[in-house]
């Protein structure tokens, strides 16, 4: 019997308009949704994401920051929060739904109503620091969800980030919280310029930089030799995933050479650890991935692995 997987989504996430030609675009969600609507995924349970509450957001972001981001949303047109990060009238609700999705998914897996969840949301989150929007990200969705879990009955969790860019925001938020292990594989050098092995936080940060043009072999070796053993040793009661698919060979924003099988492999390995320590509880949320076909195929491979098929 396949595992019970819920997909959190919301129309507001597609209404977040980043302007003509921007790679972080609504069609990303549509491409993944089309793949996940195929018959093989018939058991997926689709739910609309709720809004994150102010209390949930301010566990990781200062209240003044949350207010300033929402105040920066224009009533018409587009505004740039930095050179890469564009917002428009629907962006505020999208950002609240994206973080709210991860919180709701955390509650669901802890309640045991589902085994795991995939949050099909945007804007992405892992570049958002405590008080800095950047790299297409407004609120750190996965960090907000992790802090929510820690406010409930989770004492020890892990965040796994396989987006091609380092999750500087997640590292910033949890660098002195040993109960949260953060492991990231990413291309280096690349934006945002963080993610070196010497960045260890309180011993709870593990960065696995990959050189440009690295592929499946280097990626799997880094996880097999370093990432997965560290995850096992931490014994997380819940695993959250920052699921960016831009390390794929066809992605236009980076230079790694993964394919969808690599995402299926790592997801399967993460599920094995989750079944050992966390009753199989995984909450995954979309981060990057900018080639629509590669993104859809990779996300489908990821969800297939979450389903255990």
């Amino acid at each position, binding site marked *: 019997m396949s595992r019970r997987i819920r997909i959190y989504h919301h129309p507001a996430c597609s209404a977040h308009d980043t302007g003509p030609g921007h790679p972080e675009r609504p069609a990303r969600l549509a491409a993944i949704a089309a793949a996940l609507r195929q018959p093989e995924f018939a058991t997926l349970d689709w739910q609309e994401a709720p809004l994150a509450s102010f209390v949930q957001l301010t566990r990781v972001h200062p209240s003044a920051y949350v207010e300033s981001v929402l105040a920066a949303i224009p009533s018409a047109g587009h505004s740039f929060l930095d*050179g*890469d990060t564009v917002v428009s009238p629907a962006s505020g609700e999208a950002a609240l739904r994206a973080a709210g999705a991860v919180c709701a998914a955390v509650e669901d897996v802890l309640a045991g109503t589902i085994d795991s969840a995939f949050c099909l949301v945007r804007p992405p989150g892992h570049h958002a620091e405590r008080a800095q929007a950047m*790299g297409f990200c407004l609120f750190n969705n996965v960090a907000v969800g992790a802090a929510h879990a820690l406010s409930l009955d989770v004492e020890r969790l892990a965040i796994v980030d396989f987006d091609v*860019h380092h999750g500087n925001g997640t590292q910033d938020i949890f660098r002195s919280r040993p109960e949260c292990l953060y492991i990231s594989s990413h291309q280096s*050098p690349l*934006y945002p*310029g963080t993610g070196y092995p010497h960045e260890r936080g309180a011993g709870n940060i593990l960065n696995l930089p990959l050189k440009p043009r690295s592929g499946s072999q280097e990626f799997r070796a880094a996880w097999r030799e370093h990432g997965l053993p560290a995850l096992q040793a931490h014994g997380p009661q819940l695993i959250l995933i920052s699921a960016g698919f831009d390390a794929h060979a066809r992605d236009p924003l980076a230079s790694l050479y993964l394919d969808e099988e690599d995402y299926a492999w790592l997801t399967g390995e993460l599920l094995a650890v989750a079944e050992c320590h966390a009753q199989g509880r995984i909450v995954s949320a979309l981060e990057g991935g900018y080639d629509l076909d590669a993104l859809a195929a990779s996300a489908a491979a990821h969800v297939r692995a979450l389903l255990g098929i």
Partner: protein
Amino acid sequence: MYQFLHDKVADAMSDRPLTVSSDTPLAELTRLFDQHDFNGIPVVDAQQRLLGFVTKLDLLKAFRFTPEALIPPYAAIMAQPVSTVMTTEPVCVTEDMPLTRVLELMVDLRTKSFPVVRGERLVGIIAREDLLAALRRATA
């Protein structure tokens, strides 16, 4: 072919080459590359002293991914001066150098053209096409 063994850079180079100054914006450099069929352009000061060499590859390098931005900021990059991307110590040749040696150097370094200097001053440029033309002339 014997003639080619005697040919010198001065016999095959283009004199009065197109040049840019070190503060020429990359947008202007792009326009020059669009207008002329050159792969690289010497960078000189007001006294024609060679300061560097800038190629299409140097221009492309300016648009590589960096830690500073997720998406390379096109307009800001195009406003940068040539000095930010040029090679400051390009391999140069002199007018009296045999073409056979220039050919060896060009193949070894995979370079498309060399500035020709007299002391510090730029006096010409010699490209792959010039060597091919000299070979053709020498064997006609």
